[in-house]
């Protein structure tokens, strides 16, 4: 991956927080994604396990992240995701690309998207698919931000 490709419109590398909210310890997926995103040239901040929504929102703000990927395999996504969204909104963060991955029943995806989740990835999603989604989505937001500013 060339540097030119990994830098979106704004010119800087994409910064993404990979986070594990809640209590489940299933970090295989989060670590694979973190590594794939890093190998694709992004700056990856992996929070580690058992993060509260408050901790995740604080990390996103502190790291000035372009995107955040939440990995949840505990079934608690309908509680944890809205909480993260709410906290980010309360801090005035509107332009971060939020994705969710894990054991998420298909029925829950529309509701998560309505809340502002850009995409939901379930078991079987390829790392390529996720990398290119994040890149495109961040590019679009940066373009939009450049046009409106």
């Amino acid at each position, binding site marked *: 991956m060339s540097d030119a490709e990994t830098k979106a419109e704004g010119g800087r590398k994409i910064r993404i927080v990979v986070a594990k909210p809640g*209590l489940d*310890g299933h970090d295989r997926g989060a*670590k694979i994604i973190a590594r794939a995103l890093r190998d694709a040239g992004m700056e990856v901040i992996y929070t580690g396990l058992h993060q509260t929504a408050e901790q995740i929102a604080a990390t996103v703000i502190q790291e000035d992240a372009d995107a955040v990927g939440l990995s949840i395999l505990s079934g608690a996504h309908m*509680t944890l995701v809205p909480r993260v969204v709410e906290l980010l909104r309360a801090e005035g963060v509107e332009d971060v690309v939020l994705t969710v991955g894990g*054991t998420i029943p*298909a029925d829950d995806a529309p509701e998560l998207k309505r809340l502002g989740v850009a995409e939901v990835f379930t078991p079987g999603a390829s790392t390529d698919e996720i990398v290119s989604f994040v890149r495109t989505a961040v590019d679009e937001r940066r373009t939009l931000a450049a046009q409106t500013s």
Partner: protein
Amino acid sequence: MAVEPGSRRRAHQWLTEVYAEQAEREALFETISGHEVRPLYTEDDLAEWEPERDLGFPGEHPYTRGVYPSMYRGRLWTMRQFAGFGTAEETNERFRYLLDHGQTGLSTAFDMPTLMGLDSDHARSLGEVGVEGVAIDTLDDMVDLFAGIPLDRVTTSMTINAPAAILLAFYVCAAEDQGVPPEALGGTIQTDILKEYIAQKEWCFPIEPAMRLVTDVVEWCAERMPRWHPISISGYHIREAGSTAQQELAFTLKDGFTYVEQAIARGLDVDDFAPRLSFFFNAHIDFFEEIAKYRAARRIWARQMRDTYGASRPESLRMRFHTQTAGVSLTAQQPLVNIVRTAIEALAGVLGGTQSLHTNSYDEALALPTPEAVRIALRTQQVIAHETGVTNTVDPLGGSYFVETLTDEMERAAYEYFARIDELGGMVEAIKRGFPQREIADASFRYQQEVDSGKRVVVGVNEYRLADDEELELHRPDPAIERKQAQRLEGTRARRDSAAIERALGALKEAAASDRNLMPHFIDAARARASEGEMVAVLQEVFGSYTEQPVF
């Protein structure tokens, strides 16, 4: 094995002259763990192999062929489906459903707050109460969980680790409530804290005090619970975290040896506790590699227990294990295909000589299973047991050139890892340095790349896909559970004697700071209706807590 020179020449000649002329498919000829598989195995591969030394007879050292002489001709494996969700009452109902459908043992899944030592009304428990397992806060919950199930007549497995000693205390008191003494209780509590730091990641305390709690349980059970398995040394979660079969085998056994060393250091006689240690392995989709893994595991354990730890009772050398099919092999796409995967994995467990088996349900890549999916999973075991004929003879694959070679190779790979871990100063040190964690992360990333690049075919995921996957009826956690459980806990708190709680927790804290065994204190606190979260919090004041340095 004595090999005729003529035959060896013939095998070599066949490979170089006949096989070399054949065209091969474009495919990865290696196991799912990346272990190379050759086109043909012959007696040539077993040149160093001595059946008397390496194979033996079933029920005899080194137990490669199985831990009992008659294996499934004498008694089938225990069909033990892991279950738990909601409050104790809902799970009790599922337990009775499974027993009514021919299941022969119980296995309890606890929810995440229970695994992490948090009460259901803790802020961090929000959204997780009763979702991935049953919520247990106090003895009252444990009593309801087994209501109407005579605890002296079923065996129970409990998958809990960091707070295992506390949950065991609840169980002992729940049995007491039924009039059953600890001596009469049969079953298993996982208590395998090392693999938590390696893979499963549900912890409460730093490693050293957590190891002390493990030994407290082992010691107490050796005295009071002769039918109980105080630790289930588990490779399952290591494999689910993305390890290879070789890593699962090596790290699990090394964890086991570490517990043995610690109990010996406490002053226990190895033959007093080793017979009650049991194991828990994954059954992944690479059929022969899995079978070789189980056979190698038994052989390594027997040899090490005898030769390194001086065990002499045959029961101390016999590795008995539970198997669960690989959750990680299940796909969210075309989920009914998971029934096929699970059947093949379960068959590997049976041909590998497992003592008990859990088969996953086809919908588990999406949610907790529905009763219908659980029933099919149980039926899968019943078909293997009663229709396929594989139970008619002991170790049907014994002597197979391929399986025996793989078993040898698996054993060698484990010893290579043992040496690397010893160089780091043993398993506890290796974990602190992130060694097993990094090995697993590397293996799981390598595998994912093979799948993403299409080098490894996963049916329905990167080949043979459908535009639209079939819709399934899924289990939905009941949003009212959280409130219901909080009310249960509130009720218990209102009924109990707060002076007694204070006394029990004070005594527990004092004992934690000494080197006394904590089990009697957990039992006292449980009887007084102290909650799990309260006991863990008191211990954390003495022990501290744990934060991982993540590696990826």
